[in-house]
């Protein structure tokens, strides 16, 4: 059996382990433990009756479905964008490259009110849509746009370094063997990008499912129609229904946990296939 700790000449083990474990416990583990403890003290039966309402199932389904659509959009667009940034040169490339990270740096509430201002019926794009006979803000389509916004950088940022590392000779070999460019892209390049792209997809999905700030402004928050799951937690808390909030919170925690497993599985799978992500 491997020893628990290999002896190391580098000092600071006690201090760094102490700080890490104390802060991790206090900031992350204790609060999450409190949620699970609350769930256990409320009891599974009560949690289930709290969760098992049409309104909550509808909101969980809405959150998950739209997050999935947004992550799929970001997967396709993110890979394309990463390719453009890594391989093409055009004026403004640097600016675009920097701007991709904007959704990470821009506070979600700012993104939320800005998107609403644009896509509401009296906004620039909203008015356009109104003329064409449909609404964007205050419909699931508006939620989709907000979720695309917050998840935009993930796929690009995971795929771009992989493209940078691709050996051009592989593409040349493919061409000398008679493949046209499209064939090379589909059968040589894409398989190399797939693991990183899937990691980005999973990260983007996880972020979208839990997203709150950018969505609640544009969603309109109509029960059974445009109400996302995190909003229901806030509503339950405002009603002092801690059991209800705990039930949805645990459900979402389980979903995030499953996604974390998915991300790890993708990484293990890809490491086995190509050696890195």
């Amino acid at each position, binding site marked *: 059996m491997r020893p628990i700790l290999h002896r190391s000449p580098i000092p600071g*083990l006690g201090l760094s382990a102490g700080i890490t474990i104390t802060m991790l416990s206090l900031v992350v583990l204790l609060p999450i433990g409190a949620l699970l403890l609350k769930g256990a003290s409320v009891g599974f039966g009560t949690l289930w009756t709290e969760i098992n309402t049409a309104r909550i199932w509808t909101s969980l389904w809405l959150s998950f479905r739209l997050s999935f659509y947004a992550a799929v959009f970001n997967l396709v667009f993110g890979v394309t964008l990463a390719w453009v940034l890594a391989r093409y040169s055009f004026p403004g490339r640097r600016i675009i490259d920097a701007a991709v990270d904007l959704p990470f740096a821009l506070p979600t509430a700012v993104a939320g009110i800005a998107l609403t201002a644009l896509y509401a019926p009296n906004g620039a794009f909203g008015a356009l849509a109104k003329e064409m006979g449909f609404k964007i803000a205050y419909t699931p389509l508006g939620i989709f746009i907000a979720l695309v916004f917050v998840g935009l950088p993930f796929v690009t940022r995971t795929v771009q370094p992989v493209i940078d590392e691709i050996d051009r000779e592989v593409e040349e070999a493919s061409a000398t063997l008679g493949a046209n460019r499209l064939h090379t892209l589909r059968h040589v390049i894409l398989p190399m990008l797939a693991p990183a792209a899937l990691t980005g997809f999973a990260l983007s999905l996880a972020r979208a499912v839990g997203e709150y700030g950018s969505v609640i402004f544009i969603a309109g928050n109509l029960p059974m129609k445009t109400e996302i799951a995190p909003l229901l937690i806030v509503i339950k808390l405002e009603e002092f229904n801690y059991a209800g909030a705990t039930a949805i919170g645990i459900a979402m925690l389980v979903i995030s946990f499953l996604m974390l497993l998915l991300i790890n599985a993708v990484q293990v799978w890809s490491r086995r296939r190509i050696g890195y992500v």
Partner: protein
Amino acid sequence: MSDTPNIRFRPVTTEPALVQGLVISGVIAVLAVLLFAPLIAVFYEALSKGWFAAVASLADKESLAAIRLTLTVALVSVPLNAVFGVAAAWLITKYDFRGKAFLITLIDLPFSVSPVVAGLCIVLTFGANTVVGGWLVDAGYPIVFALPGIILASMFVTFPFVARELIPVMIEQGRAEEEAALTLGASGWRVFFTVTLPNIRWALLYGVLLCNARAMGEFGAVAVVSGKIRGQTATMPITIEMLYNEYLSVAAFTLAGVLALLAFVTLGLKTFLEIRHADALAATRRH
């Protein structure tokens, strides 16, 4: 040169120029609608009644209190998370022990927990109706609906940022330099400050930058724990929400514009660091 036929060959490793042009325009069009338009909208709405109205709305007592609170929260939570990030990265990269992968998973946990769930967890830990929270409220130190809760919520959502940036860089740099310094008789702190820190300073700054941007802009987790008391526990993003819901559009978008400028500064510094110190920042561009 007159012998060569006047044909320009395209390298086999690129796409035809026409395809490139179409893809580039398509990508820029999508980004224009999704990224740049909202950004322009923030400043357009903020300045819709002129510069004076925008500046006047910032000078409001509640807006000033919100700015002060947000700065306080960042000033406490970012250094604490930086200390944690350095300690965690040191522990993970300088020693070999069992359960390291599990520890990394735990540190990454806040990335995949919804901010609202994070806020809920803090309310259930330190709320006035819990054992610990009730005792603290009685002692005169309320956590939830007060500053400590907001700091805790901000720390939760930004917890992995610094460690995430440092770990790949420190793995790449290995332990040889530290070990060499130790054999030459340097103390542990001396090794850290004169050997490790200069190697990781840019990655550290980068992590702190991202951590700060997120801490100042956090909405979901803070919304749950803050109680939204005007002038007391309303941070900038919370105040933006309250102003927006009261149809005080200019004030809401002006405050949003201030946070957007902060995002510009963050991205600008980040790009600068990437160009100047690309070698010191490992290729970890996950967030």
